[in-house]
């Protein structure tokens, strides 16, 4: 007796189970191992058996993959020492075994309580991602919740080959409140949820080419998108970085002075702003002319 199961409403474990082939997921360092954060315990903050990230091996459409899912409810999905080590290890294993790696992101970045360890772990994970890419092992980030991908994890997500997003997902570096704090409420009102999603939400990220797929908020849709991207990977080269830099410069020149996110949508070919705002991910993708 279940109704619709929205991906963004599921727990990390449910998301993995719903995404991969039935009963194919084998968790690494599962809860009974009790690898919990010693720092949080010292500070009197509740710990979690998986330190906020579930990792393991599974099959997707019969193909072997490594997969991780962050737990956004647990200290904002932030990366501490153990959480980070699990991520690093997973991507290193992916590079070693030449098995694609999927990361279901839900994280504000580094965990303040164990900052240095988190920073280092994120950097090491990025290095492992580059190692994957050098070997053309596909790396895919899924960003499907409002906790989204921010801070170091926002950057990390852009190191992957592809990003699959939903309309609920958000991608950025500084969070809305931080931007407001530095730039003032006039420049960026973090309480204006429509503005926040129009600047960092999945639709805008897809329009600008930061997300490679914009899909329904369901495990089926995300699985299809991931499956399509699993076969492809490209190495990061000096040329590819330079090309990307040029694209970003062009974007800055085009939209740098724009204060109105609707103007960006219009310039990117969206005609019916109200309709597009309300549209689902794939409807939006169909309505919009996609650009870089």
């Amino acid at each position, binding site marked *: 007796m279940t109704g619709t199961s929205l991906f963004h409403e599921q*727990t*990390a*474990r*449910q998301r993995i*189970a719903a995404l991969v082939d039935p009963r194919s997921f084998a968790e690494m360092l*599962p*809860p*009974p191992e009790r690898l919990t954060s010693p720092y949080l315990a010292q500070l*009197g*903050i*509740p*710990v*979690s*058996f998986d330190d906020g990230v579930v990792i393991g091996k599974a099959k997707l459409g019969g193909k072997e993959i490594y997969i991780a899912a962050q*737990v956004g*409810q*647990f200290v904002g999905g932030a990366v501490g020492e153990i959480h980070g080590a699990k991520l690093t290890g997973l991507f290193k294993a992916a590079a070693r075994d030449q098995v694609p790696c999927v990361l279901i992101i839900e994280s504000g970045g580094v965990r303040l309580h164990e900052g240095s360890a988190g920073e280092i772990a994120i950097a090491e994970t990025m290095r492992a991602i580059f190692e994957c890419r050098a070997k053309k092992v596909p790396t895919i980030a899924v960003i499907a919740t409002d906790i989204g991908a921010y801070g170091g994890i926002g950057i990390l997500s852009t190191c992957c080959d592809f990003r699959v997003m939903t309309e609920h997902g958000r991608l950025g570096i500084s969070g809305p409140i931080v931007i407001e704090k530095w730039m003032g409420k006039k420049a960026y009102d973090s309480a204006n949820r429509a503005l926040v999603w129009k600047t960092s939400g999945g639709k805008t990220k897809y329009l600008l080419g930061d997300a490679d797929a914009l899909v329904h908020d369901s495990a089926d849709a995300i699985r299809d998108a991931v499956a399509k991207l699993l076969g492809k990977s490209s190495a990061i080269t000096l040329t590819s970085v330079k090309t990307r830099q040029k694209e970003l410069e062009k974007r800055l020149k085009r939209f740098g002075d724009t204060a109105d996110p609707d103007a960006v949508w219009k310039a990117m070919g969206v005609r019916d702003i109200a309709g597009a705002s309300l549209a689902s991910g794939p409807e939006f993708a169909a309505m919009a002319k996609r650009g870089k």
Partner: protein
Amino acid sequence: MEKFAKAFPSKPLKTTAGKPWALAGVVGSGNLEVLVERGSRPSDAMDCHVETSIPGYKASWLAALADFAHHYPAGGTKVTINDQGAPPVLVTLRLRQAYDHLTKGEK
């Protein structure tokens, strides 16, 4: 933080097959995670370990856990809980979900 442990009399688990452990819930504000594992001794007790961020509610915790052990055959299990201020009803609900997963092998 408050920590306590207590074993409650409970009829032994019916099945010996199925998963060795099951987890329900997440640690987050007003929420908790419950880990239930097989193979604990004695087989006629539910061995509970609770760590909670809100001290002072031991009586209702113990009453909720005792009721669960009374209503369901959970003897021979070890129950470990990380809590961030969940209301008692969630304790019962998550316990029940973890127990269902453990005994029925659901996801």
